[in-house]
C-alpha cells in the first residue's frame, strides 16, 4: 500500500468519490520540502519558453549545470538559424561567486555578439546570481549600448517561485521586444500564435492552416521564433494563446497596451483544432470568405483523416489512460482526444494547473477519474495500478515508471518525435498511442500475465484457445506450455 503525504491529500480529488466535482483542489502551492516532486524551477520555466527564439543568443549566467541540463533538450525546430541550439554559459567558479560575475558576463556577451551577430540576446539569471547580487540589468544595458542589439535580462533565479514565475519572467523579457518593429505592412486579418513551441514542426502545420484561411501569422511565440517578428507582433489584430499557463501573461500585456484581444485555443484533437480555426474566422467577420474557407478546410482535413482514425478507434476502444503533463490546458485536449479514440481517462494530473483548470477538468472527466496536482512517482504508480490503465501520457520522468509497470507510453512533452498538433497530428497521436498500447511486448508483462481478469476476458473470446498449463515449477509469468518435451510423430506424406 502506497501512502500519501498528509499535506498532499488536498491536492488529489476523485470525481464522484468522497470528493466530487464541487470539491476544490488545492494547487498553486510550492511543493512540500522532502517530497519527490516532478516539478522544476523558475529558470526552467523561462528557459523552455524563450529557448525556441532561434536567432537570439541565449546565455545562462550561472554555474555550468543550469546550462548543461537545458542544452538542446527541447525538440523545438527552426526553419533557419540554429544558434539557439548551442549551450552558452558563464560557468561561474568560486572566485566569481566571491568577487561577482558581472565582468565575466559582460566579456562573454561582447565576445559572443561580435562572433554570432544575433538579433537579440537573452541573459538568464540563475539561483546564485540572485544571491551574489550581480546587477545583470546594468550589464545588459551597457552591452546593448555597445552592440546596438536588445540585450534582455531574464529574472529567472530558480528559488524565486515556481516554474510559472519563470514563464512570467520570460514574458516580461519578450515584452521588451514587442512594439519596437514596423507594423505598416501587416494585413488587417492577422494573428499571433502564442504558446506554440514548434515541437517536431507543429507550428509549421498550424501556420499553414491559418495561411489557407487567408490570415497572416505575424509572429509565433516562440516556436521557430524570430526576433524581428516578435518586435512587430503588436501589429496583429488577434492573439491566439495555446499554452495558456506560459503565455497568457504576455497576451494580457499586449491587450492592455496595444488593444489586441486574445483567445485561448488548443491545436490538439479535431474538436479543439477546428474550434481554434473558427475562433479566428469568427473574429474576422468583416470577411465572410474566411469562415467559408475555414469550414472547407475542416471538412477537407477531417475527411482525410477520419477513416484512419476509425481504424485506430476500433483497436483502442475501452482502453484506459493516465495523463500527467506540465500544463493543465493540454490535459483538457487530451481527455477529449482520448474520448474520440474510444478511450477513457482514469487518472489526470498536472504540474502547474490552477483552480479554474482543475474545476474544468472535473467537469469534463468521467466519474471515478482521479485528478491530481503536482504528483510524485509513487502516487502516479499507485493510481495507474489501481485503475489498471493501458497508457500513460507524460514526460521524461514518467516514461520509465510506466514501462516498469508494463504500461504503454506516449510522450506529449519535449521529447515527442512526431507532430501531434493539427489534423495530421491527431492521426500521428492515434498511431503512436496504438503502437504503444497494442505492442506485443505487454503480453509478456508480468502485470498483465498475472491478471486473472485478463485471462477471463480471453476465455470468452471465440478465437482464444486456452494454452496448456505450465509446469508450475518455473516463473509465474512464463508462457504456459512452452519448453516441455512432447512426443514428435511423423506425419505420413
Amino acid at each position, binding site marked *: 500500500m502506497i501512502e500519501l503525504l498528509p499535506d498532499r491529500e488536498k491536492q488529489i480529488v476523485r470525481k464522484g468519490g468522497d470528493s466530487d466535482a464541487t470539491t476544490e483542489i488545492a494547487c498553486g502551492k510550492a*511543493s512540500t520540502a522532502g517530497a519527490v516532486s516532478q516539478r522544476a524551477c523558475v529558470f*526552467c520555466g523561462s528557459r523552455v519558453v524563450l529557448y525556441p527564439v532561434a536567432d537570439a543568443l541565449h546565455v545562462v549566467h550561472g554555474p555550468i549545470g*543550469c546550462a548543461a541540463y537545458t542544452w538542446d533538450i527541447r525538440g523545438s525546430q527552426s526553419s533557419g538559424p540554429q544558434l539557439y541550439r548551442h*549551450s552558452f554559459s558563464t560557468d561561474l567558479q568560486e572566485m566569481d561567486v566571491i568577487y561577482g560575475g558581472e565582468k565575466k558576463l559582460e566579456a562573454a556577451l561582447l565576445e559572443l555578439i561580435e562572433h554570432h551577430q544575433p538579433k537579440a540576446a537573452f541573459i538568464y539569471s540563475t539561483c546564485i546570481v540572485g*544571491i551574489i547580487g550581480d546587477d545583470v540589468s546594468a550589464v545588459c544595458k551597457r552591452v546593448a549600448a555597445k552592440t546596438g542589439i536588445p540585450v534582455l535580462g531574464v529574472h529567472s533565479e530558480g528559488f*524565486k517561485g515556481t516554474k510559472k514565475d519563470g514563464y512570467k519572467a520570460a514574458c516580461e523579457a519578450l515584452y521588451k521586444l514587442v512594439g519596437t518593429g514596423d507594423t505598416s505592412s501587416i494585413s488587417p486579418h492577422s494573428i499571433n500564435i502564442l504558446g506554440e513551441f514548434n515541437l517536431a514542426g507543429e507550428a509549421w502545420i498550424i501556420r499553414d492552416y491559418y495561411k489557407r484561411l487567408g490570415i497572416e501569422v505575424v509572429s509565433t511565440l516562440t516556436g521557430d521564433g524570430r526576433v524581428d517578428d516578435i518586435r512587430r507582433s503588436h501589429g496583429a489584430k488577434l492573439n491566439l494563446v495555446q499554452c495558456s499557463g506560459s503565455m497568457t501573461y504576455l497576451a494580457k500585456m499586449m491587450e492592455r497596451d496595444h488593444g489586441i484581444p486574445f483567445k485561448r485555443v488548443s491545436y490538439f484533437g479535431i474538436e479543439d483544432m477546428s474550434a481554434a480555426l473558427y475562433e479566428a474566422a469568427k473574429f474576422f467577420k468583416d470577411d465572410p470568405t474566411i469562415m467559408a474557407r475555414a469550414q472547407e478546410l475542416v471538412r477537407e482535413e477531417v475527411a482525410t483523416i477520419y477513416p484512419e482514425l476509425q481504424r485506430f478507434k476500433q483497436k483502442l476502444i475501452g482502453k484506459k489512460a493516465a495523463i500527467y503533463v506540465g500544463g493543465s490546458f493540454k490535459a483538457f485536449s487530451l481527455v477529449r482526444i482520448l474520448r474520440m479514440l474510444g478511450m477513457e481517462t482514469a487518472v489526470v494530473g498536472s504540474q502547474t494547473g490552477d483552480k479554474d483548470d482543475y474545476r474544468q477538468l472535473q467537469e469534463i472527466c468521467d466519474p471515478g477519474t482521479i485528478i491530481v496536482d503536482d504528483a510524485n512517482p509513487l502516487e502516479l504508480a499507485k493510481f495507474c495500478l489501481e485503475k489498471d490503465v493501458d497508457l500513460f501520457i507524460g514526460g*521524461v520522468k514518467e516514461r520509465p515508471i510506466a514501462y516498469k*509497470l508494463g504500461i504503454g507510453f506516449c510522450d506529449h512533452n519535449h521529447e515527442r518525435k512526431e507532430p501531434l498538433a493539427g489534423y495530421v497530428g491527431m492521426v500521428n497521436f492515434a498511431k503512436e498511442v496504438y503502437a504503444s498500447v497494442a505492442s506485443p511486448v505487454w503480453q509478456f508483462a508480468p502485470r498483465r500475465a498475472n491478471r486473472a481478469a485478463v485471462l477471463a476476458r480471453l476465455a470468452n473470446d471465440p478465437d482464444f484457445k486456452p494454452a496448456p498449463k505450465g509446469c508450475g515449477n518455473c516463473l509465474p509469468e512464463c508462457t504456459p506450455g512452452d519448453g516441455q518435451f512432447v512426443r514428435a510423430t511423423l506425419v505420413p506424406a
Partner: protein
Amino acid sequence: MLNGTTAEIKPREALRINPAKTCQPIGAMYAALGINGCMPHSHGSQGCCSYHRSHLTRHFKEPVVATTSSFTEGASVFGGLANMTQALSNIFTIYNPKIVAVHTTCLSEVIGDDIPMMIKKAKEEKIIPDGKYVIHANTPSFVGSHVTGFASMVTGMVKYLAEASGKSEAQLKAEPQLNVIPGYIDPADMRELKRIIKEMGVKTVMFPDTSGVLDLPQDGQYRMFPSGGATIEEIKSSGDSVGTIALGHFASHPAAIELDEKCKVPSALLELPYGLTNTDKFIHALRTHGGVDVPGSIGQERGRLLDAMSDMHQYFHGKRVAIVGDPDHVIALTQFLVELDMKPAYVFTGSSGKHFEQRLTEILGNHAPDAMIKQNVDLFELHQQIKNNPVDLIIGNTYSKYISRVENIPFVRFGFPVLDRMGHRYFPAVGYMGALRLMEKINDALLDHKDRECAEENFELIQ
C-alpha cells in the same frame, strides 16, 4: 547547426560553449543511488533536483527518485534549516528509506548552510528515527564537476559509515574481505565487476553499487527503493577490510584515501579497468590482495580479447582519434587505444585536474607525442581543433554527435551521458568482455563509415 563553429581559435576566458561536464550535485545523486534503500536529497531549489532526475533518467532509462528542500526566497534569506528539518521529517515519515544522502547546491552553499549541524539537530530532535542514517556531501556547483560531486559523496559514505570494529589482524585475515570502489561507471559495469570478482572467488564489498537499482527488470511494480545497492552494513564493514581497490583517480581514490586515514585500510589505487592492461591490473590486484588464483575461465576471457585484438589490429593502426569525457574514463580508454595501436590526437576533459594531463602525457609519451591533452575544455574547442586537423574517429558522450554529423566523422558513444542509444544500459565496457565490446563498436563505426562513403571500386564484401 554547428557550422557556426569556426576554425579560427581565439582565447576565451569568460565563456563556456557546449560544455563537456556538468555540475557536482548530479554526481552526488548518482553515487547516493548506489546505497541500498537510500533517498538522495538535494538541499536547494527544486529545479536542481528535477533536472538531475531527468538527466539521469535520460541516461539510464530508469525511474530516479530524489527529494528536494524546495528552497524559496525565504529560505535563501533565513537559511535552509527549516526546509531541511521539514524535508527529513517528511522523508522518514512517508518514504521511509534506510538512509538519506544529502548533497548541497550552489544556493545552499552560498548562503552558508551548515549541513552537519542540521543533521546533528535533526538527530537530537528525533526527526531522524533510531537506526536510520543521514550522510552528506558538500557539492557546490561552482566548484569541480559531476565527477568531483560523485567522489565527494563516496567519500561521505566512508566518513559517516565506515568503521573499524577493532578485530585483531588475525581475525580479519582469517576471512579476508576487500573493498572495491568502482568509480563513476554504469550499473552494467558494476554488475560486470561483481561477476569478475565472483569468478575470482574473492569476498568483496563494493560501494557505491547501482546495479539492481538502475538496471531493473520489468516486474510490473514500481519500487522507490529497489533491492540493489551496497547495504549500510556492508559499507560499515569496509573499515574492517584487508584492503581497498579504488578504480579511478578522480572518482574513487579520494574515498580510498579517506578510508585509509580513518580505518587504516591500505589501498591499491588503480585506473578504470577498460581494455587489456587496466583489466590485467584489476585482476592482479584481486589475486594478490584477495589471496586467490586466477581461474581458467578468466584466462580464457583474456585470451579471447587478445585474439580479437589480433583479428582487428589491421583496421586500427594509426587511426587518429579524438577522445573527450570524464577524466577517469578518458585516461583508461586512452591506454586501451594505445594498445590497439590507434593514435589519440585530442584527449580532452571538461573537468579540471593536473593529474589528467600528467598521466596522459605518460601514457602517450612515446606513442603519440603530438597528441593534444587538455583539461577544463569544452566541445566547442574540440570542434575547432578538429576543423583545423581532422580525426578518423570521435569517442565521447552523446553531445559529441553534433561534431560527428557536421564533420562526417565516425563516432562511438562512451561515458556519461548517453542520451540517444540504449546499449550502455545492458552491456558493460569494463573487463575483458567489456573491452571486446568497445573494440567491436570502434571497428563497426570505422567500417560502416567506409562502406557508406568509399568509392564503388573500393567497396568490399569481405573485410
